[in-house]
């Protein structure tokens, strides 16, 4: 082999090498991108867009079914509906400590699990609960029915005004 041939040989080798390394890097890159995208999409897949469980919005009948001063506990939905005069509110009965269902009492709420006590507003009076009970938005449907939306938490003390 003369020098020229050597040179050409080297050049061919170099081309081969860059081609190989390109293919390698491309494959590794493509795999990484696929893995990333798949992981992300699968995580989103795992997070339900609509809850398959109990509906978050539900109707609880007309305002006139609730006498002023009444407190109605809805065990299934885990809310308490309270009417003071012309104002209606829905308060969650899910304890903010570790998720037990609190019981409604004359002076507020009591959690049977670890003894958290809340006042009528849902503010913590005693026990390990770190936050007050959640208040949910109460609305009126066109047909005049009350509707609670558990996805929308409102400030404590937010009532729906209804006609007397």
């Amino acid at each position: 082999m003369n020098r020229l041939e050597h040179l050409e040989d080297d050049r061919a080798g170099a081309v081969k090498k860059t081609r190989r390394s390109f293919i390698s890097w491309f494959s590794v890159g493509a795999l990484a991108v696929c893995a990333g995208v798949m992981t992300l999409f699968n995580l989103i897949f795992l997070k339900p867009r609509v809850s398959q469980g109990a509906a978050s919005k539900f109707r609880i009948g007309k305002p006139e079914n609730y006498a002023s001063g009444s407190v109605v506990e809805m065990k299934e939905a885990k809310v308490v509906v309270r009417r003071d005069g012309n104002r209606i509110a829905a308060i969650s009965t899910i304890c903010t400590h570790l998720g037990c269902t609190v019981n409604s009492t004359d002076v507020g709420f009591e959690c049977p699990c670890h003894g958290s006590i809340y006042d009528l507003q849902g503010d913590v009076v005693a026990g390990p609960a770190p936050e007050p009970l959640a208040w949910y938005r109460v609305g009126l449907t066109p047909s005049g029915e009350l509707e609670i939306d558990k996805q929308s938490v409102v400030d404590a003390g937010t009532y729906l005004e209804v006609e007397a």
Partner: protein
Amino acid sequence: MSVDRVPEKPLPEGDKPGLISSLKQMPTRIYHSIFRYRPVPQNELEQAQAVADNFFFHIHSAKVRERSLKLKTTFGLGMLTLNVFLILCATGVLLMFYYVPSPDEAYERMQDLNGAVFFGRFLRNVHRWAAEAMVVLAVLHMMRVFLTGAHKSPREWNWVLGVVLLLLTLFMSFTGYLLPWDQLAYWAVTVGTAIAKYAPLIGEDLRYVLLGADEVGGEALIRFYVLHVAVLPAIMFALIGWHFWRIRKDGGLARPTTPQKNEVTPVTPDEQPEYDRFPKTEGKTYGLMAVIPIRTPQTGADVEKQVHSWPSALGRELVLFVITLLALSLAAIVWDAPLEGPADPSHPPNPAKAPWYFLGLQEMVAYDAFWGGIGIPTIFVLLAFVAPYLERRKGGEGVWFHPSRSAANWTFLSIMLLLTVLTIIGTFFRGENWDFVVPW
């Protein structure tokens, strides 16, 4: 190596392999097509083959150090954990034939298993007690590894795999806890997953993805079921395989660099290998080993006592397995797995408790939600992961409570003691409203 391992009787000259003789030879031929050695090894070569040529046994090396088999080296704890895991897989698959992961059916199915299905109660009991035992055994195994310094270099990664296995064991137990769909299950999981909510940023999402809804319900049940019967066991199988492979690649079980007198066979002078008496001249090499940049084989040193895995290691493993099986069977006959009333989302029990191995956590949550439920546990888990990388000083490997490691051991034991005490308080000393009670 393709040695003709089993002497086969050659066909007599001129004998045509006819149908009759083929039939006669069939059992032997079938046997030898599966096993390349005799049923009971007759010499050391066959003993080695019985291990190395067997798909299930070749996870072992042909020979193991006598020291590794001593009870006080490991107390067989890793093996016991494995046995319990295997029994869990077997009984779990059987339970799956009757179980339906739906809120309408799950509880009834559990009642059926307890009463109507032949052998159902026994299988369920074994599965339950094995699950509790696995948590305990994995923790004890971890303690023995740490207290014998077996997590240090070069075994750091196997320790990390172990920590992952322990977390998976806990998660496995936790996902299984929900499946009976009784009051105990429902509220333990409600309380247990509520702890996740205290994690900053991801807490709410984590719980939502885990439960598939805002609260424990049908979605959570199917998710926990899939994790419990498919995802987690598959991951654990793979990781346990990796864990075992690493033990061999890390040079077998941890042991002191200088073995004790009774662990070695001294090499007598006339057994000194030839090449050790070569004059050592600089710049000259006497073997290929010298040009490869790895540690050269040791010569002239005392030889550690080794025994064949068949039957020494395999026999002990068999005994351990039988002990596990008998203990769990006995437990299953004597004690029934708990099954309370059906899950009732509107009536929490007082107090509502997470599964017992999370009660230390729940106890801490009662003091401070974030630090108890997330902060401190995260610190402990991170500490566990990095422990072998923190403790870099050599020495004390394979020795219980080695004096040079007393600081590490005391730190470790204090943390374990703290967690144990908290768990005991949470389990026995907490009554209604999580008030302190005295159990007697």
